[in-house]
């Protein structure tokens, strides 16, 4: 184990555990660029929003993260404000991990989180992250809202009709519960129209994604343990969520450990089916169980959320749903699927560095505009939030809509 290596500082416990992985980074710079050859065209683009913005190698890709980790472990660097900035301006989008071909690859995201875990020990955490982290412990959401208001988005008529037991619990997530409520509503309406056997939990907590991504694993465990009990409470076999961040948390962070040889991140006993809402709908479309009432005659482009796409490799289901909608003309952005470009919100960046976060979102919106699309859509309320803010700020004519919002306009009730 890396922690036993004689040449690394032992007090960086979380990083030291990963030392053997971190050492596998050759510093080769493969992570700085997205590219792929093809018979007709070669694809080439910058993938790292952080490198794209700050340019210095200390920000660019997983090479920068391994370098910072090495510097700390070998006592060449102290955990200064500059280290904090380089560590926390990463959106954890995974573009670098996509390109890495060394044995560092499976531990890249974990290393970024471990750097952040170490940052907490030194108090080198952006104030905004500290603020919501304090709030989440009490109110179970990072939006400075009351836990008791979590279900305010849900109309009473629907609330009363929800069953006590169901096959699935719809895991709404904090952003759709408190901010992008229309996504939660659209999702519920779609499920009802399609006859999905679901309910909404009365006591859902944050999935823990913001905690995982900012290195607060112990606290995240508490959230995972609570949410894991929801299935038993509703006799459900799994979760359906309309949020990419929740999907990754429930599907991967709760259930999967780290690369071989390392102890499980959480150590909780949780094994359950986890589906994104677009996966459920796509499957029903494939079975011919979805009927449409009208047409959505607009040009639409789709933004792959990093947590659903690169991190969980769900690329085609949302596209299948969109392509099945009558009248909808679907166009791709140059950077799509595994080569998608981050919306700029993830990894705690939106809260801690709002200007840079919006600047990144604006780059994505500009890319969407170039396709000629009128609608920019996605499958993540958090991406929705940042992209729609960037659209407003830029005065763009584009409109942001979640896939569920588009679908609910044309679904036969």
């Amino acid at each position: 184990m890396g922690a036993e290596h004689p040449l690394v500082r032992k007090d960086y416990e979380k990083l030291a555990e990963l030392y053997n992985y971190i050492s596998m980074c050759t510093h080769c710079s493969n992570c700085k660029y997205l590219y792929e050859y093809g018979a007709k065209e070669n694809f080439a683009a910058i993938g790292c929003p952080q490198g794209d913005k700050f340019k210095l190698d200390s920000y660019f890709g997983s090479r920068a993260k391994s370098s910072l980790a090495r510097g700390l472990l070998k006592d060449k660097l102290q955990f200064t404000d500059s280290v904090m900035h380089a560590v926390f301006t990463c959106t954890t989008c995974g573009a670098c991990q996509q390109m890495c071909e060394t044995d560092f690859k499976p531990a890249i995201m974990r290393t970024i989180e471990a750097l952040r875990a170490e940052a907490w020990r030194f108090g080198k955490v952006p104030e905004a992250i500290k603020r919501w982290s304090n709030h989440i412990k009490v109110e179970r959401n990072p939006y400075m809202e009351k836990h008791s208001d979590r279900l305010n988005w849900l109309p009473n008529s629907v609330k009363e009709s929800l069953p006590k037991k169901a096959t699935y619990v719809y895991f709404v997530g904090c952003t759709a519960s408190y901010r992008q409520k229309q996504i939660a509503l659209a999702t519920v309406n779609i499920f009802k129209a399609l006859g999905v056997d679901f309910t909404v939990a009365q006591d859902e907590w944050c999935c823990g994604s913001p905690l995982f991504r900012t290195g607060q694993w112990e606290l995240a465990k508490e959230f995972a343990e609570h949410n894991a009990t929801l299935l038993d409470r509703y006799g459900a076999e799994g979760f359906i969520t309309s949020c990419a961040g929740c999907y990754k948390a429930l599907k991967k962070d709760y259930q999967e450990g780290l690369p071989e040889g390392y102890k499980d991140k959480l150590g909780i006993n949780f094994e359950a089916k986890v589906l994104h809402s677009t996966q459920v709908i796509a499957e029903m479309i494939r079975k011919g169980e979805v009927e449409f009432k009208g047409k959505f005659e607009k040009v639409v482009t789709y933004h792959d959320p990093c947590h659903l796409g690169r991190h969980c490799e769900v690329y085609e289901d949302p596209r299948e749903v969109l392509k099945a909608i009558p009248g909808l003309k679907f166009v791709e952005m140059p950077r799509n699927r595994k080569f998608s470009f981050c919306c700029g919100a993830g990894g705690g960046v939106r809260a801690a560095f709002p200007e840079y976060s919006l600047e990144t979102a604006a780059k994505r919106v500009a890319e969407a505009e170039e396709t000629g699309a009128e609608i920019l859509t996605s499958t993540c309320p958090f991406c929705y939030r940042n992209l729609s803010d960037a659209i407003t700020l830029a005065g763009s004519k584009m409109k942001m809509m979640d896939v569920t919002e588009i679908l609910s306009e044309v679904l036969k009730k």
Partner: protein
Amino acid sequence: MGGNDRILKQLQEIVGPEYATNDEALMYPYSYDLTWNDPHMPDYVVLPKTVEQIQRILRLANKERIPVVPYVTGTNIGGLCIPEEGGILMDLKRMDQILEINTEVGYAVIEPGVSHAKFSAALKKHGYEFGWGVHPASASVLAMAINHGIGHLNGRFGINSQMISSMEVVLPTGEVAKIGSCAYSNSWHSLYPLPMLAGLFIGWLGTTGIVTKLGVWISKIRPYKDVLTIAAESAEDITKYMVAWRDLELCDEVTAVSWWLAQVPIPYPYKEKPADAPEWFSYTVISGWSEEELAYKRKMWKEVVERERAKGVKLIDYEYPPEAKRGRTELPSRIVGSTKNYSKACGGGLAWPGTFTPCKSWPIIYNKWKEIYIRHNLSPAVRFTDFRGSHYGMLRLMTPFDKRDPKAVENARKAMKECVEVGVPLGLLPYKPPVEYWNIMNKYADPGWIMLLTKIKDCLDPNHIMNPGKLGVR
């Protein structure tokens, strides 16, 4: 913090506050590379965007006698961008524009920060290509070319520096000069028939100035490609075949790799080759404008193989794995550009002894290197590639090693230096050489050569600010 705030302030005035730093945490990734070369911290990192900014930085560096190290991606395997004496590390990645793709004349003009990925994608849209070597997609086309980097067309055209058609350079003292046809018009088509002043900046490892624009010849992509493969038991036999085949000048590339280099990853530490496996595997890429042309080249290749066999050269039939074949015919590819073949699971270190060597010396040197490497418990993962020109080319020993263990690093360093020591008298000329290789090379060098090298360096860089120490003479 490195350096001092007075200089930092001046650098920030030139490039903007966000593009100059002396913060150690932010500079740390620039202090080392893949190799065993000792790390050194820069005192400042600065990211200029324009030629004028570079001029001002160099004038400041001259005035203050501060070393300047040019850098784009730091992917070279020779410690070239490690600042031996600290100073200003000039990261050129913001200068990333493809300024011209001229298909009518057949050249392109690029800035230093243009990556191979960006360049190849842009060229492919026009149906053109440029040599892509073994490096990540982010590697700089300009830095590769001016440092004699190789590409995938070296059997047809030679190395990438032979494709340079013009350049713009900022001298260490801050003046700007255009070299080649661009000095007389806005056409960047040729260095000829002018005095070859480009040679003052090619192969000098950033010690004579900053090349800010580069014209390179580009070539049309041939639509038909194939990969032909053959194996051999000995370095002698595979070399005889390669020389005979390249004599016909029909291939884009002909390369052979030892059994250890054919493994993914390279065995680390040394692992014995299975007795029934051939020691050498060769591929050659052929291309053409029609299936008939390709068929002709296949026929000629078969004749070469049969002719060599008739002479007693032992060649073994073998088929390339389909994915590897695809990687060679659909260049540039992740397979070729990846480092996983070399360094996966080894512990992060990668370096090589090599490279430009007459083909006749390949087997002799390989057999010596094999003995040295087995003694050091390292795999003799060697590559031969015959470049266009005389029969010379790459003799390179890719060496993964474990950076976690100082003894392993030292072992690799010693083995590689030993290889250079035995190779130089037999014609080996290391490319992108670390300082420690220069020290060996210069022992054997003609005194007149060293004198001339030193005179030119002194003339261009009177205050010795440009990448000091990297030539082993200044």
